[in-house]
Every structure is written in C-alpha cells, then in structure tokens.
C-alpha cells in the first residue's frame, strides 16, 4: 500500500490550484450572481490541457489518468462549484462516452477538440420521464439509409445550452428496451433539427447551463453511432460510473474549502468574550467535518486508483457520489451554523455553497438510485436479485 501522490500528480495539483485561485476564484461569486457560464475559463482550461486530463495524449489529452481527473475536480470544487459542474459534464460524461466506446476515427474527430477545449460536450440522457430511471428513454432514432433520424427531447442537460457535441441516448428498437434497444449517438449541435428549448432557473449552480433540448427530424450519420447499435445503455452506464466518482471528488474539494473557511471564521469571530473556536459546539462541528472529509478523500482516491489500475469500481463509484454529496451537504450546513448571519448573506461565499451543494444529492443519479445500485450489488453477491 502506498497512499502518496506521484510526483506528476503533485505537480498537477499545484498547477491546477494556481490556475483555480488566479483565474476562477475571483469571479466565482459573479458567475452565480449574474448566471454566467464561465466559457472563457473553459477555453483557458482547454488551452493548458486540463480538459483532456484523463484522455490519452494521442487524442490531445494529458494522460494523467483518473487520479489526475479527480485532482482536477477536487481543486475546481474548492473554488467554484459551477466550473466543477461544467467541467464534469464536459469531460466526465460527455466526452467520456467517446473515450470509452468511440472508434479511433470518432476519437480523432471529436475527442481531440474536446480534450483541447475547442469544443464543449454534454451528455444527453435525462428525459422528463427518464431521470434516475435511465431505461425509460423515449427519444426515438430510426435508420434511414446511411443516417439515423432522431425525434424527441432531453431535459436538465448540463452544458446543454452551448455544447457543440452531445452524446445522446435514443431508442433504436422499442421491443428490446434498455438492453439491446438503446443506442448512443454523437450529435453535433449545429445540425438542423437541434433546438435548445429553454434554460432552467435553478436554486444553485446558477453559473451553469441546464437546458431542455428538442430534436426534430435530427439527422445523424451512421458513423456517429457510439459503440454498437443497441448497446448505448452500457456505454452510458460506464460513463456515469466515471462521472459519479469525480462528482465525489468535486464534493471533497467543496467540503475542504468550507472546513478551511469555518476554521478561519471560528478563530476570528468573538462571542461571549472568546473566539468561537473555544466553544465545544463549534469544535464538534469542525471535528466531524474534518473526519468525514478525510474518509471521503480516502474513498475518492482509492476508487481513482482502481480505475487507473483497471479494476472493477462501479460499486465504489456509487458510494463516492452518495457519500461525497452527503458529506458536502453536512459540511455546508455546519459551515452556515458556524458563520451565523454571515452564512446567510449572499455577500459571502457560504450561502452560495449551500445552494450549490444541494444538487449533488440529486443529479447524476439521485442518492436513492445510488443506494439501490449499492444494495443490488451487495445482494447479488448473495444470490438475491433486486429490481428498482
């Protein structure tokens, strides 16, 4: 066992932290207040290679592995939940499908510009009646010669409002259902028939685009089918596993930042003649936060190591998402309590963190779905099959 980061990962963290603190932290509040998507940040991240952090160098990536990707998400999560969400949707699920199941031609054509940040990706799974229930997709794709015609729509698509490339899940054979009847397509958003119907007004992550998309007779060439026809569900599930892990990493960064802010405030603010740090109620909150954060850190990087060494990780990725989102929610709750009135004010970052944190228990598969996944895997080992 070796729990130290390799020199390249230490250097990577130093580089990302410098970038995040110089370029992102100063504008994080403004992104939230003005509902601005940090496209300029995405472009700069791409320029220095970070949007290809975990992709191979032959396709414009950095080759820093899943560990490198987790470091990126942790450091982004520390300073700006919005950037973390946008980057997560771009790398972790949008481009990830192409990385996992794309042909070399598809990777050259699509993954390379995505890794360089020249194009932005999104992941088109959720529909109004198919959120956590991914198998309930209704968007239809019909073969017509060398193309497929897509009809339907997607909701709550992160990056949806401005993505150039969206990996879309559509039904190609209704009779077969999720296993065999669903196919993944690479859709270019400048194709005729693609429309952004609306942007959602969210409680948090207001510096990200969450869009409703409509496809009307959208023509996709057959060469844009990802993986095999009928196996899209598998592609998407594999990407979601990756996304879940790095969502946990972003939560880790967010929680760590809240801990540091709380410690700072507790040693500064005096009430009843002494600093809050001397109050046991506050000490308990700090101790609980710190303990959970360390447990989460161990979990996140252990799973990253599993991915990088080619071992199975689905079960633990679900735990990362579940535990990470809850650790962050508890941390932000305690941070507000320690900051008092300051924690409620939109002039200070804790309030934003509170609104931003809550989505993590919901998107990329609600925590209830993660629990179903985890329980099913455990029961399966004992011969019990769980149906959601």
């Amino acid at each position: 066992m070796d729990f130290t980061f390799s020199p390249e990962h230490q250097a990577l963290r130093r580089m990302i932290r410098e970038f995040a603190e110089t370029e992102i932290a100063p504008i994080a509040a403004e992104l939230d207040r003005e509902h601005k998507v940090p496209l300029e940040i995405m472009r700069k991240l791409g320029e220095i290679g970070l949007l290809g952090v975990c992709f191979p160098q032959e396709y414009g990536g950095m080759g820093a592995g899943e560990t490198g990707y987790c470091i990126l998400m942790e450091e982004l999560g520390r300073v700006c939940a919005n950037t973390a969400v946008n980057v997560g949707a771009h790398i972790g699920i949008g481009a990830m499908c192409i990385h996992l199941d794309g042909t070399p031609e598809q990777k050259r054509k699509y993954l390379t510009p995505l890794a360089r940040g020249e194009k932005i990706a999104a992941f088109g799974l959720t529909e109004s009646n198919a959120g956590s229930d991914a198998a309930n997709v209704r968007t239809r794709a019909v073969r017509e010669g060398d193309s497929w015609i897509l009809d339907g729509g997607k909701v709550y698509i992160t990056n949806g409002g401005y993505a150039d490339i969206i990996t879309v899940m559509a039904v190609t054979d209704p009779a077969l259902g999720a296993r065999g009847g669903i196919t993944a397509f690479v859709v270019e958003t400048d194709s005729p028939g693609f429309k952004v119907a609306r942007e959602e007004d969210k409680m948090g992550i207001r510096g990200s685009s969450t869009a409703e998309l409509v496809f009307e007779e959208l023509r996709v060439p057959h060469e844009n089918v990802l993986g095999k026809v009928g196996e899209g569900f598998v592609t998407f599930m594999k990407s979601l596993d990756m996304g879940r892990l790095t969502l946990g990493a972003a939560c880790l960064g967010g929680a760590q930042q809240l801990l540091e802010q709380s410690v700072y405030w507790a040693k500064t603010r005096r009430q009843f003649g002494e600093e809050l740090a001397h109050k046991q109620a506050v000490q308990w909150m700090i101790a609980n936060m710190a303990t959970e954060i360390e447990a989460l850190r161990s979990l996140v990087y252990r799973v990253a190591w599993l991915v990088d060494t080619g071992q199975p990780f689905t079960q633990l990725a679900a735990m990362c998402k579940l535990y990470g989102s809850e650790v962050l929610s508890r941390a932000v709750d305690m941070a507000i309590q320690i900051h008092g009135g300051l924690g409620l004010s939109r002039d200070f970052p804790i309030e934003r963190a509170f609104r931003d944190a809550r989505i993590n228990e919901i998107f990329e598969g609600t925590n209830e779905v993660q629990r179903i996944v985890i329980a099913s895997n455990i029961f399966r080992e004992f011969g019990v099959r769980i149906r959601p």
Partner: protein
Amino acid sequence: MDFALSEEQRMFRDMFRNFAAKEVAPRAEEIDHAETLPKEMLRKAADQGFLGATIPEEYYGAALDNISYTLLLENLAASCASLAVTVAAHVSQVAMSILDFGTDAQKEEWLPALAGGEAIGAFALSEPDAGSDMLALETRARYEGDEVVLDGVKTWVTNGELAGLFLVFARGPQGMDAYLVPRDTPGLTVGYREPTLGLRSAYFNTIYLEGCRVPQNYRLGSPGEGEAIASRAVDRMAVALAAVGLGLAESSVDVAAQYSTERVQFGVPIGKKQAIQNYIANAYTETEALRYLVYRTAWLIDQGEDFSVEASAVKAFGARIARSVTNWMLQVLGGYGYMEDYPMARKYRDARVLGIIGGPTEVHTFRIARYILLQKDLEIVPRHQ
C-alpha cells in the same frame, strides 16, 4: 388535557388558510424572486386584522389567543415564510413588547397604529459584534435633560426598510434600555439590506443611529429594564419562528406527497417506493411532533406562565425539523425540487435561515441546558468554558 382546537380556533385557521391560498400563494414565487413584500399584500393582511393579531381589542387589535396566532403564522408560512416572519417580528417582537412594558400613553400612541398596519414594527437588537451576546452591545443611550441621545449601529433589523417604528436597545447609565424610535427621527438611517439565502421577501437591514435624539418618555420600561424586554421579545419570537418552521414543514410534506403520486419512475409512481414512503412518513412524524410542541408552548403563553425554556426548546426543535423536513421533501422532488420555478427550493432556503435568525440554535441549546442544570444546582454561563 384537550388537544382539540376550539370552534373559534378552527374558524380562524380556515380563514388564515383561505387568505394564504388566495392572496399569498399565487404570488409567493414572484415576490421571492423580486425580493419584495408588496405593500398591498401587507395592506390586505392588515385589513384582515393580522397585523394586530394578539393586540387587545381596546387598541383595535384582533385579540387572538396565542394558539390562533400560531395558526396564523403557520398558515402564512405555508405559502410564504417571508410574510410570516415579517408579521411575527411586527407583532411578537414590537407590538407585544409595548403591550407588556409600555405606559398607557405609549400603548395608545402606538398599538392602534401597529394593529392597523399604519406603522410596521422593527426590532433592533443585534449589532456587528454582538449577535447573541447581549452583554456586548455597544449602542449607547446618553441622557441629556429630558432627552436621550442614541448612538450605534444595529444589524439584521427585521422589517428595517418597511418599518415606521423601531424598538431599539441601547446601553444607558443604568444598564440596557429599550426605546421606541419613530422612523422619521433625525439621526436614524436605514442602511444596507442583507441579501439573504432565504426569506428573501423579508427585510433585514442595518440601521445607523447617529446623535439620534428622542424624549425620555420614548423609553419602554424603566431605565435598565431593556434586558428583560429583549429576552421576553426573544422568547416570543422564538415561538413565532417555530410556528413558521411548522408551516414550512407541513406544506413541504404536502407538496412532496402530491408529487410522489404523479412522478412515475421504474413503472410506478415513486410514492410506491419504500424509500420515498419513509421520507414522507418520517417528515410527517417530525412535523406532527413539532406541531404539538408549538401549540403547547403557545398555550403556555396564554396561561400566563413563564415559557423561556419552552420557547428555546421549540425554536431549536422547530428550526431543526423545518430544515430536515424540507431537505427530505426536496429530495422527493429530485431535480424539480432544485428548480426555482417550483416552491420547494424556496422552502428549503427559507427553512435554513430559521436556524440562525432569532438566535442561533447553539444559543437556545445553551439556554435549555442552563435551565436543566440549574435544577441540579450547577450554574453555567456562556463565557469561558
């Protein structure tokens, strides 16, 4: 023991509920996003007598008992917690302080105006360096002949921008004093409004007192009685905020239960899933526990008993339950719960604020512990331990 509401109380409850549903609920999202409380909404509340809720009839109040008053706040909060908090500060913190400690002249001057909504009351206790710690107050009251000069800064003044009358706490020569300061008094300036996480239609302002001069007879109570007035007001507000928490909790359960019958996942309404059932059942149980704790505390007030400890208990519990219930119910709504065009996100944000305003949970917890330990002959103080 009798847990039933009286005929009259039930009638009031239905009236409050109808008012909230008709006048408040349809605009709740809109006013939250605009961060205003429309004057006409307050006007309508005043016309119904809500702004004089527990003020006696002789001062043109509605003379509600405290359980009915709780029902009022609960039902207003179910639609719009900001409005409920505005009314609560006006009635519980300001009007009732005047009723309890004011001279006949002060009561006659201010209570009818407050009851009719001609003046909204604001409570100015917290300061930048003294939130929960009353001994650390720095606002000064200097006696000059028949007048008193107030100097200091007050923060988180509920209703600040709306107010016609401020109840200001300041340190005088004989301890803490309380003063009734009309809005137009020279030297009183209403400043920055806190942009808050929740309760965005309520107003929390900083106010500045610079050589603010009022006659001696604007003092509420005798010199040095301010601390008693403040703690009484804090107690009443604690119960009122618990009622707001109850309204938030019960309406969230209602919204989420309805949604769980409509949202189909994995082929069935999610209400058929045990996890969702658990959330809703636990939320309901907690809400009902809170309901009877709030009603009982309101009943205690009506009995004329001391209710300080009960107030702290119900405030701390209410904030916790409102927080956990809105949190679970938001989870039931999933992505829809996170969107600002549905009420759930607002309720969730509003509920979190209850754990801080009116004294953070830690302060109320301390008050409860102090009471219990005193029964065992152990005296505790909030300093240096």
